[in-house]
């Protein structure tokens, strides 16, 4: 508990210090609980998520960083490895490939990479996975684009 708190505090200070180091990621710690974090990440360019801003929620376990944090999308996203209803993410580094040398920041980077390179073979969103697997790239793009516009872009006007 003490070790995880100390480590999270280090990450917190690092985030404060390097706020502009990675313009695509904005990590913030909950005001009252250092084990709860949120992040805003920018949809990577040349993907249907471009132009969208997606919110992530982190729940950090007491064994952190020996155990990975739990992360999910708060913003609706149409992606084969993200559960459409719960926002749960299927990503190996959040499970068995976790390393205690990862940080919340590097988890965000890994999620951005996942948005650009979906893994249709381990889908949490079957509709989306099936579109990609059947080679219907256009179908996938238009769905993902539509949800990005609906959920991840600031309303105009």
């Amino acid at each position: 508990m003490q070790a995880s708190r100390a480590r999270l505090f280090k990450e917190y200070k690092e985030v404060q210090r390097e706020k502009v180091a990675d313009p695509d990621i904005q990590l913030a710690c909950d005001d009252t609980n250092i084990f709860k974090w949120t992040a805003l990440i920018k949809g990577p360019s040349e993907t249907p998520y471009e132009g969208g801003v997606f919110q992530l929620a982190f729940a950090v376990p007491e064994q952190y960083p020996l155990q990975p944090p739990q992360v999910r999308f708060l913003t609706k996203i149409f992606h084969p490895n993200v559960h459409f209803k719960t926002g749960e993410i299927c990503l190996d580094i959040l499970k068995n490939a976790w390393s205690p040398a990862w940080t919340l920041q590097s988890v965000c980077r890994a999620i951005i990479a996942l948005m650009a390179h979906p893994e249709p073979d381990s889908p949490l969103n079957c509709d989306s996975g099936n579109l990609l697997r059947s080679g219907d790239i256009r179908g996938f793009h238009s769905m993902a684009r539509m949800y990005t516009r609906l959920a991840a872009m600031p309303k105009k006007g």
Partner: protein
Amino acid sequence: MDSEDEFDMHDANGDDDDDNDDDFYSGGDDDAAAAMDSDEADVADYEFIDNDSDDSDDIASHRYQQNYTVLTEADIHQRQEEDIMRISTVLSISEVAASVLLRHYNWSVSKVHDEWFADEEKVRKVVGLLEKPAFASPNVRELICGICFEAYPLDRMYTAACGHPFCSTCWTGYISTAINDGPGCLMLRCPDPSCTAAVGQDMISRLASAEDKQKYSRYFIRSYVEDNRKTKWCPAPGCEYAVDFIVGSGSYDVTCRCSYSFCWNCTEEAHRPVDCGTVAKWILKNSAESENMNWILANSKPCPKCKRPIEKNQGCMHITCTPPCKFEFCWLCLGAWSDHGERTGGFYACNRYETAKQEGVYDEAEKRREMAKNSLERYTHYYERWATNQSSRQKALADLQQMQTVALEKLSDIQCQPESQLKFITEAWLQIVECRRVLKWTYAYGYYLPEHEQAKRVFFEYLQGEAESGLERLHQCAEKELQVYLNAEGPSKDFNEFRTKLAGLTSVTRNYFENLVRALENGLSDVDSHGATCSRAASSKSLGGTSSKGRGGRGKATTSRSSSSSRNIDDSGHWSCEHCTFANVKTATVCQMCHQRR
């Protein structure tokens, strides 16, 4: 429910068995030394090899090439150490590195050799054995730990071969998490996500807690058995032995030092002559039907005559109702015992499943008719016989134990016979135990034997029936007739006759079962060559040739079956019964064993 899935297992009765011709059931047909009055124990053919130390060495050396070794934990440890040493020496690497390599290649020494000498650099990369550090520590007094991000003096930092520094607290936590996650800890890598450097046993011993170290070595030794293609744990509950098997060397049946016999391939209990696929299907079927089968397993049935409930507490199927009824009947089919066996002049009446059973014979007729509706009846027939033989075998095992610990000594005193001369009783019981096992599995075989293969079915049921009736006679003799001598006040005049009878029945039953096993292992192919016959003459002939190779030392009553003129009479004037192969004395006109006329 009835799964016809294909099972991805080796076929226990595959063609590669041919080279293993010397074991129990594969007696050569050319050797006609089938003897009845064995004076040399044949015990070592069976499961209790260890009990019979006086001649087991002998047997192991010249007629029983064992294709497996039972390993204790100490043996496993020693073999593991030896393999590690071997790799360490040949590859000139540390023992820790050798362990990492061996674990990666599932403890196959030859695979490690091949891969290493084909492309050492590639192997090092895959396995994580770095030759030089990937990370050079800057020349400073303090370093930042890559996990807790605290700065520590150099002497509190530890690194794997790669050089990535972490503090001892973080290492301990990292290692502990991995160990408590399971056997994957044996392939642990550096915590740095971009680094593949292996974290070996040296790091574990330096940095893990005592409790974790102990868990780690459990996984380490278990891995040598579980990840090794040639080794498996004995599946008996509580048994800690492993069995090392020479793959491709024949029959998969092995017997652990704890006396449990199992199939090395599928780890179910030993099921020769039935193949693994059939066994797996059958077990799946049983679990699917288990609820329906519960009522069948009830240990009491009504007497077919007086309807009083009878409990079966003996191993043999011949039940006698309590006085005054005293009706003798068969536990399996509830038919009169007098209708059973050779006296009916045909099949042993009980093994054969007939679709059109007469109505009203059974007390459970109502229930059964209902079951027939959902096609359970056929299955029930086979299941009941399978399960009954199973419990009969358990009972026989217990009886054998009791015999060896108590009864033989008592019998020796009463009958004034040295215990060494009572070996025939142990032999009889060993035969019963083994036969019950085989018989049990033939019912699974029978269930899956296609209905349309009529000729094979008839042949199979004939062989099974003969074997079963032989076994029932033997079991009854060993169980009930023996009691008379055990309860006697003093020596009985006819004890020697009893000896002859029981030894004879043992030998006859062995013959029947050898036939049965061989026929099933050949896929009943004899049916084709014999022109789909099951006539008594044809099969008695094949029964005649069931002697076994190298089982010498009791050739007195041999029957020479090669020449047809003297087929039934041997040198000493005995004649061999056409029906059961028993060697009768010259003067007898009726077989002493099965009461058939000569």
